[in-house]
């Protein structure tokens, strides 16, 4: 049973730079264990020591947020698509100096 998992840029160090990997599992927790067996360390970035999803990690099964399905116990089926994304307000990368541009007459 193959499930495609899309990996965000920030976690591709664990997947040899691959954007998407395949895995298997009846639940999201099983899938993450399966991925970790080939991409060691990935699980530690997705799941906290307390055993829940990391606060700033969002996982979607067929575009639906798993926190509103069954979280790590969300059931998976062959052909499902899983997407992992960091929680952003429209993104962030590096701190940079802000530049004030022209505007207004004050």
């Amino acid at each position: 049973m193959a499930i495609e998992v899309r990996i965000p840029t920030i976690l591709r160090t664990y997947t040899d730079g691959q954007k998407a990997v395949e895995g298997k599992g009846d639940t999201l927790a099983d899938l993450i264990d399966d991925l970790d067996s080939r991409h060691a360390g990935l699980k530690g970035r997705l799941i906290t020591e307390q055993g829940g999803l990391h606060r700033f990690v969002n996982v979607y099964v067929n575009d639906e947020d798993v926190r509103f399905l069954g979280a790590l116990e969300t059931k998976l089926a062959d052909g499902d698509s899983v997407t992992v994304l960091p929680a952003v307000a429209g993104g962030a990368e590096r701190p940079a100096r802000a530049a004030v541009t022209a505007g207004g007459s004050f």
Partner: protein
Amino acid sequence: MRFDSLLESVGRTPLVGLPRLSPSPEVRLWAKMESANPTGSVKDRAALAMVAKAEAEGLLRPGVTVLEPTSGNTGISLAMACRLRGYRLICVMPENTSVERRQLLTMYGAEIVTSPAAGGSNQAVAVAKQLSAENPDWVMLYQYGNPANAQAHYDTTGPEILEDLPTITHFVAGLGTTGTLMGTGRYLREKVPGVRIVAAEPRYGELVYGLRNIDEGFIPELYDGSVLSSRFSVGPREALRRTRQLVEEEGIFAGISTGAILHAAIGEAMKAVKAGERADIAFVVCDGGWKYLSTGAYAGTLEEAESALEGQLWA
């Protein structure tokens, strides 16, 4: 309808049926036309409520500097309000937002501080927080954490929708500051047993998710997941396809984030059809398409439009 000034004309927007996109007479879609607000977006509600609250608290006096991280619409709403009230406004805005938004802000007299494209809104928030710390006399209204944002929707958007659509079963809106969903969602949950509150979250290109590490992630302080029934991630292809469908089939010329919301709303409609249940699904038309013409979203094929949007903050 007559108002004493533009500021007072916010809200009470039309709720418009979608006879062609609704799958059946039992499963209906309704557009809450927030594009009909004074500056053309849903953000007028939150912006004016935040200004009114700060005024009531004595934080704002003529000549004071207001600061806000915004990818555009909130800035435009604030710029209009600040112009009329005599405040100076500085918007911190990612550089990958459309040129129309910048021109509108400048026209209203706002100053723009640019944050890096690769930073997206997270970076705009970070830059604004830093500026706020360096300039303690400036007032940051902070839409991501200001309870007046969600309260505006609890007090107005929610009651308006329920009054126009007492048979509502679903409310679908975009997830940005989360104010629309938190406020409207809480109100509807109190009044309508079993109502589903559904979030549509824009999924951008990879550039936007280029954090250096997971702990740089950001969740708006207003966000409370318990208000939501489900949350969908919608990519640019689906958002564009639905945006075009909305104008072609129903005549509504909306911005791209509205396409993402419509996609989630149609998904819910299809589930209701499959389950044989009736549904009245209200969704938010956040703004009109005017400000996004330069993005290429409305020209050429879907493929061309999608590639034109890559790397842009389209919602």
